[in-house]
């Protein structure tokens, strides 16, 4: 390309490139091609050995306002209510946090043991550990020679 020499010498070209990059990033935000959002709360899920980890950011949530269910072996449901304490008298300068009720159901990639669910809420981050159900564990099949 003829532009490649320009790239090195013209600060204006670099600026244009940078600007274009920023515009693209902005556009990504609007069109949602960044991290996809499937509801509230947003979730991160990963696997480690025989367990699944589900994490959600729930700042200000009380444990008593949160219910966790495992149904049908592989459906995880988070149900809760976010309440914000409002001072009695005064005026809002800014209100960005939101309150209300939420329900989110996630289908897990395999059945989990409903008896072995561990949930912790620490510094506003919910971490759920789910163990793979015995029936869903891979089994090694011995091949017999005739």
């Amino acid at each position, binding site marked *: 390309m003829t532009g490649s020499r320009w790239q090195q010498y013209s600060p204006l070209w670099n600026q244009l490139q940078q600007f274009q990059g920023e515009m693209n990033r902005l556009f990504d935000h609007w069109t949602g091609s960044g*991290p996809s959002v499937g509801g509230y709360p947003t979730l991160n899920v990963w*696997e*480690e050995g025989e367990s699944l980890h589900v994490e959600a950011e729930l700042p200000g949530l009380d444990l008593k306002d949160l219910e966790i269910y495992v149904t049908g072996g592989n459906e995880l449901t988070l149900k809760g209510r976010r309440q914000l304490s*409002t001072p009695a008298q*005064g005026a*809002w300068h800014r209100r960005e946090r939101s309150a209300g009720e939420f329900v989110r*159901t996630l289908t897990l990639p395999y059945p989990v043991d409903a008896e072995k669910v561990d949930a912790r809420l620490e510094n*506003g981050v919910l971490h759920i550990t789910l163990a793979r159900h015995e029936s869903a564990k891979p089994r090694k099949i011995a091949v017999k020679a005739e």
Partner: protein
Amino acid sequence: MAENSNVNAATKGRIETARPELTRGGLHFTPRVDIFETENELTLFAEVPGARPEDVDLHYEQGELALRARVSPRTEGKRFLLQEYEEGDFFRAFNIHESIDASRISAECKNGVLIVHLPKAEAAKPRQITVKGA
């Protein structure tokens, strides 16, 4: 159970360039903030999930309140099956126009919510003036 949430599911706002710029790289986010004013103080609530009280750095100088919360990585190197949000530190700064008694600013951090109390300076408090008859 149907998906039914009336909580605003806005994603975390990622900061491209924090002002003043930070020396440490990595992702930074704008915490969602509520600010409430009462007769005696301004109260600021900031959502900083994942930050412990000792991870929060608050600075007030010449009417500018800067808050920074470091979040230790929890999922570094994990292979996500689903990733809907990213981790990173929180940063935000405000210009406070009301006159604040800087020596009495206090803060607490609980369940990932930082609460900052900014007491108004005596001179800025509303005063009831008694009107005397002649």
